């Protein structure tokens, strides 16, 4: 059976094609302002990679903040439930999932069956998210994919007190003016993000194995800072951005399976 999951996030659109329980193809691309068009594009690319046609899809589930605007979706499910499904598939031993996306972050406790036990998410603010790091990368004149590796070379501890994207940027500019090294400032930023995530995990049972997803999980500096702060093993799947889309495709398989059973 072939099912699909489409995740329209704040900055990127993701699609996963699941064929008989295995990932047959996926795509990640910038979202843009037209959600419906982005959904069509990302699904088309994932299908192309899988060598399949739209007509082959038995069920499609949409998730993410733009989930209601995906025309082909038979059902919409929140990214919190989808993240739990995706985590269970990719890393069944993980009891917690940290999803740091473009504009928000979520902490989800997952049970051994992939069900959500508890969750927390940030408020209306891009503090400590992907967008936050994009702004800081710009201020430090460094490529996004180099933030992690460069920060690991830090020697001094710099404390960034502001987590607001606007204020932290001016703090970073001041630190540059004071002559601090880029790697030290970057490490300070990553530590600040980890501190914020750690504060969000309060009230939930801290697990020994945690899976990280979302674009920021690609940043090794943030992942290491999270491991230090949470005293846990943080695993990152090969493509952390598609966890929710994968979860949506798994959800679609469950729906299609039930319908087949009925008829």
């Amino acid at each position, binding site marked *: 059976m072939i099912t699909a999951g489409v995740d329209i996030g704040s900055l990127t659109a993701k699609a996963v094609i699941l064929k008989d329980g295995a990932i047959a193809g996926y795509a990640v691309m910038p979202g843009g302002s037209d959600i419906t068009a982005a959904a069509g594009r990302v699904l088309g690319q994932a299908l192309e990679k899988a060598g399949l046609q739209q007509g082959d899809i038995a069920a499609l589930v949409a998730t993410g903040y733009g989930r209601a605007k995906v025309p082909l979706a038979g059902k919409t499910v929140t990214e919190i439930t989808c993240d739990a499904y995706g985590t269970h598939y990719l890393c069944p031993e993980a009891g917690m999932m940290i999803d740091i996306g473009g504009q928000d972050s979520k902490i989800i406790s997952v049970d051994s069956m992939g*069900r959500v036990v508890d*969750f927390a*998410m940030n408020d209306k603010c891009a503090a400590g998210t992907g967008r936050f790091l994009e702004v800081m990368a710009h201020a430090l004149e460094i490529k996004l994919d180099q933030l992690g590796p460069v920060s690991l070379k830090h020697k001094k501890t710099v404390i960034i007190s502001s987590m607001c994207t606007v204020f932290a940027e001016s703090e970073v500019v001041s630190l540059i003016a004071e002559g601090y090294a880029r790697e030290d400032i970057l490490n300070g930023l990553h530590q600040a993000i980890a501190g914020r995530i750690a504060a969000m995990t309060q009230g939930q049972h801290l697990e020994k194995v945690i899976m990280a997803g979302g674009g920021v999980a690609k940043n090794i500096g943030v992942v290491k800072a999270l491991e230090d702060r949470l005293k846990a093993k943080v695993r990152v799947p090969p493509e952390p951005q598609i966890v929710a889309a994968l979860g949506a495709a798994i959800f679609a398989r469950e729906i299609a399976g039930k319908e087949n059973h009925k008829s």
Partner: protein
Amino acid sequence: MALKLAEEYKVDGVIHFSHWGCRQSCGGEHVIRDLMKKKGIPMLILDGDGIDSRSYSKEQTKLRLEAFLEMLEARR
């Protein structure tokens, strides 16, 4: 009291609204949360302001509520 009510009504979950600046609701949420956790009753805490809507985010509130309902559904 909250626990008695939860048991009397055989609730699937609890939604607690914490009003900003209200010491009773913001302070009490952790006590209630811990109690519900012991009983295995899921709880969602929503923060907000009944008068000042400037920090209200409709989508995020909707997402929290939808995800909470999906979570309760999966437990059935």
